[in-house]
């Protein structure tokens, strides 16, 4: 056998083992490392796998059928997740997992983290579902040790994975044109064009425009008191997204490269507090420009070694204007913020024995922020993350241990203005046990300690920032189980996932007032304890020509603030966290028809730590319904969908004084060539 044949045969064998290995160690959640050669129409039966960390996922058809415009809307259907929504399509939407705070959630786009060093949160309302294949939420961390160090560095994470081109037999091009329109003068056309350039390389281009006036009616009323209906003004949005990507396969590996551009202008209506009707209109406006360039390369080299390289550059520009010439009540604010982010990462996997794998990853990131604020210090942050992990797989027992080291160095233009260096070690341990071979029952537990760095705003914002801030720590303890069964021909599949958890947040960064209401500073004073339970149930039915999937999510959370033991309100439920919340999605398909019903319930909660009647917020629930029909044309597939959201026109708000829309409609037309 000559050398190249040996290489070929071992490569062939390695591809097999790579596939096995990858499917064992990486999630099949539309992971960017795998190219799916599956025809479009397959309905995947397993949505919650027997993962050793709690994971929830929405993908494929179930994701597309949701009456959701953005990732933020879709994520509301997960347990333990809270979206803080400031209203309308344009309002800020941030994700909070198990009440630890939005800053502790790592947001990943195609495997690479989207960061915001300025305020530490990502507005998920900006990510449309148009080109999205899968959204997954992990508590703790993904249980794949072969991942960049960043994936170990958040208390929880959300992974957004875009479509990887998949071509049916004989097809070299996919074209998907969609037009959506609806209430509040919303118009949303989009385009997706995928090409198979060679047998190893494919490309995808996606573009989308979103425009809406945001003028929805809202209502505030008290029993035996006032009852007022107003219209939300200055909530218009104009947004454009363009993405282009290349995907390639090489010998034992694959790569992808992507460019993502997002540009938007929107109005900020502000809090709907008491004002004379129609007298003074909020006119604040915000412009965003986001550019992202990222590339990923994974390859198996040799029998037991694989590596994954990632690189990214991001530029974010934000311009906020509040003009007293348009709104006489306001203070003049005209601020421009520019952030640059550069990132490289190398992850390495060593599979020495079949039951033991080791990984070593290192990530380096450089962030800068410039702003035209008075006295701004122009901070720069260098972050070096190193993670070492080990994974043990025996027949019934899975164990993973990882240790993350974080080194952060801040530099500011003004001498002595920076927060200095920080160096921390944080561990994670994950275990799962499957007691019976014949039954799909898995018991699991994890412990994780991790922290988040104070953001640039926390440290350096003129007058408010405090450069002496320490990081904010979280400890998570989780125990739970997953169970799967295929009961009968009608009830094809049942999957249940339940977890009980206890989390602590230490040195929580909170805003503390100083001399008056308009002067605050940030301090590490807070301490919060969270006790909760998340439940996710998925069922699949097939009968009488119907395909039915029913999904139920429930959360119970007791999230208490113990910051000030002397306070009368010590132990109060933290703001906006309901004790009970849940959602249900029922998708029913009959031939070419599909009916989708979704329901969200948020129980009572309080708007402040003082859990008194003045701060009480009523529970709310919404029902969404959509009906779609597939039509087969000569050369194309077509789908028409009609949606009614908030069917019973319930007035509600997520954040106090930021009302949400009442009943609204949408019509979608999708043409797939």
């Amino acid at each position, binding site marked *: 056998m000559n050398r190249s044949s040996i290489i070929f045969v071992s490569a062939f064998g390695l591809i097999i083992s790579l596939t096995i290995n990858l499917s064992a160690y990486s999630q099949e959640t539309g992971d960017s490392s795998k190219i799916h050669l599956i025809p479009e129409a397959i309905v995947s039966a397993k949505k919650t796998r027997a993962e050793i960390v709690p994971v929830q996922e929405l993908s494929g058809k179930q994701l597309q059928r949701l009456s959701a415009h953005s990732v933020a809307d879709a994520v509301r259907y997960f347990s333990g997740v809270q979206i803080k929504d400031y209203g309308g399509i344009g309002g800020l939407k941030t994700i909070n997992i198990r009440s630890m705070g939005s800053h502790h959630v790592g947001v990943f786009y195609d495997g690479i983290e989207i960061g915001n060093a300025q305020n530490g949160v990502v507005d998920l309302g900006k990510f449309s579902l148009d080109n999205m294949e899968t959204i997954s939420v992990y508590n703790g961390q993904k249980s794949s040790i072969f991942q960049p160090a960043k994936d170990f560095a958040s208390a929880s994470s959300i992974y957004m994975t875009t479509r990887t081109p998949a071509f049916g037999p004989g097809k070299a091009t996919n074209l998907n044109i969609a037009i959506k329109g609806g209430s509040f003068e919303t118009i949303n056309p989009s385009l997706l064009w995928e090409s198979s350039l060679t047998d190893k390389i494919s490309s995808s281009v996606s573009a989308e425009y979103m425009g809406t006036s945001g003028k929805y009616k809202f209502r505030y009323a*008290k029993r035996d008191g006032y009852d*007022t209906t107003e219209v939300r003004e200055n909530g218009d949005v104009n947004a454009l997204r363009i993405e282009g990507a290349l995907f390639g396969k090489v010998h034992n590996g694959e790569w992808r490269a992507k460019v993502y551009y997002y540009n938007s202008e929107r109005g900020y209506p502000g*809090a709907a*507090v008491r004002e004379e009707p129609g007298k003074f209109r909020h006119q604040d406006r915000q412009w965003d420009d986001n550019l992202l360039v990222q590339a990923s390369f994974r390859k198996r080299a040799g029998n037991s070694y694989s590596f994954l390289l990632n690189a990214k550059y991001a530029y974010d520009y934000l311009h906020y204007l509040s003009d007293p010439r348009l709104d*006489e009540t306001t203070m003049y604010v005209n601020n421009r913020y520019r952030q640059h982010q550069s990132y490289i990462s190398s992850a390495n996997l060593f599979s020495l024995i079949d039951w033991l794998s080791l990984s070593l990853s290192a990530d380096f990131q450089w962030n800068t922020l410039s702003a035209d604020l*008075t006295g701004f210090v122009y901070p720069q942050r260098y972050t070096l993350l190193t993670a070492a992990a080990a994974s043990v797989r025996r027949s019934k027992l899975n164990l993973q241990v990882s240790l993350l080291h974080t080194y952060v160095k801040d530099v500011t233009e003004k001498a002595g203005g920076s927060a200095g260096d920080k160096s921390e070690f944080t561990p994670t341990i994950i275990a799962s046990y499957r007691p019976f071979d014949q039954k799909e029952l898995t018991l699991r537990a994890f412990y994780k300690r991790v922290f988040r760095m104070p953001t640039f705003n926390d440290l350096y914002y003129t007058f408010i920032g405090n450069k002496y801030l320490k990081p904010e720590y979280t400890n998570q303890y989780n125990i739970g189980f997953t169970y799967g069964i295929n009961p009968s021909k009608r009830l094809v599949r049942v999957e249940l996932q339940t977890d009980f958890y206890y989390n602590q947040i230490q040195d929580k960064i909170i805003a503390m007032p100083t001399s008056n209401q308009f002067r605050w500073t940030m301090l590490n004073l807070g301490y919060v304890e969270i006790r909760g339970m998340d439940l996710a149930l998925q069922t699949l039915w097939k009968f009488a020509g119907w395909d039915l999937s029913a999904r139920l999510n429930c959360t119970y959370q007791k999230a208490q603030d113990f910051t000030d033991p002397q306070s009368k309100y010590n132990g109060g439920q933290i703001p906006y966290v309901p004790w009970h919340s849940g959602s249900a999605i029922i998708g029913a398909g009959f031939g070419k028809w599909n*009916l989708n019903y979704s329901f969200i319930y948020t129980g009572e909660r309080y708007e402040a730590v003082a859990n008194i009647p003045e701060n009480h917020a009523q529970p709310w629930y919404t029902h969404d319904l959509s009906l779609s029909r597939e039509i087969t044309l000569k050369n194309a597939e077509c789908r028409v969908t009609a949606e009614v959201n908030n069917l019973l026109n319930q007035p509600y708000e997520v954040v106090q004084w930021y009302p949400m829309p009442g009943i609204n409609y949408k019509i979608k037309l999708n043409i797939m060539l």
Partner: protein
Amino acid sequence: MVSDARYQLQNKTKYNVMRKIHFAIIIALLLTVSCRKDEFKSEIVPSTATKVTEAVYGSEIKGFFLLNEGNMGSNKATIDYFDYETGYYHKNIFAERNPGVVKELGDVGNDIQIYGNKLYSVINCSHFVEVMDVRSAKHIAVISIPNCRYIVFDKGYAYVSSYAGPVQIDPNARLGYVAKVDTATLKVVAECVVGYQPEEMVVVGNKLYVANSGGYRVPNYDNTVSVIDLDSFTETGKIEVAINLHRMEKDNQGNIYISSRGDYYDIPSKTFILDPSAGNVSDVLNPLPCSNMTIDGDFLWLYSTEWNYTTQSNSVSYAKVDTRTKRVVTNAFITDGTDSGIAIPYGLAVNPENGEFFVTDAKDYVTPGTLYCFNSDGTKKWEIETGDIPAHIVFTRYKLESK
């Protein structure tokens, strides 16, 4: 064959019927799950009455109103009332007395005063002055003034300071103004442009003195007091004092005490004495930082809350000045150590009839505050929980009717 076709047709019909039944079931389920339409409505929060002290009869001052500011954007300005004749403290009285007023009192209550038989409450971020009947606290009208700050009265007119003056070329250089309101008609009858971001005012003789802070123009604070002649209602001059002026009080000697907040970094807060007849600053009381002050007879009471970046904490101090000698007579008018439990003093008032004084604690601005009542000797008499950010007190000579 025919039977096959008929069988298929029968099955198809059966499926169609079943499909319709299934749809109907789903729709029915939805409608049953639908809630009572009005469940989203919450109750108006009623007032809470707590007995805090013994009832006292025969005083001229029947009680006081306390205005809680509420954190900006929370729409939580509220009014509390203390009744001397019953010894009860009533927390949050406005909403239950005015159930038809949309969204209750409003966002950020900045000042509360009584003139004639009306109670005036300046609601800064709702952009109006809420006018109520002083005997019932029932809504009469609102006076629309954008970004209004403080209110004073003279000869049947109310004068309200506002940040929202005319915008000229530079939107960052926008002067404030004082609105003149006819208290009989509750309409703005004139406006007078003053300095940048005007705050408190005092009337001495027939002149109105206005403290200009310039707080929006950091680091270029304003440093002047505007002088308005009340007959012509025009600004006749400016007196240069110090940066970031805020509080003003007039004493029995005809002098005006005025506070400067400093720049929060190198320039500390100070207290100044203005001589209106001379038209200039006559004294600088330094070191005497001041966040809030009030006059009772011949004494000026004040406190200061200053953030110290080095110690990472607020440093709070109290003082009392004899206005006849212009000297600090004590640095601790709270004599029993209660002050060590006050995190952020935010309101200060002295009952001119019996010498009792009141200090509020705003705590962390998002939790209910505390009002402390002290005897004239500085020992605590009673305390009570208030709304969010208790800040402004006005004594009333009319007893508030029950609801």
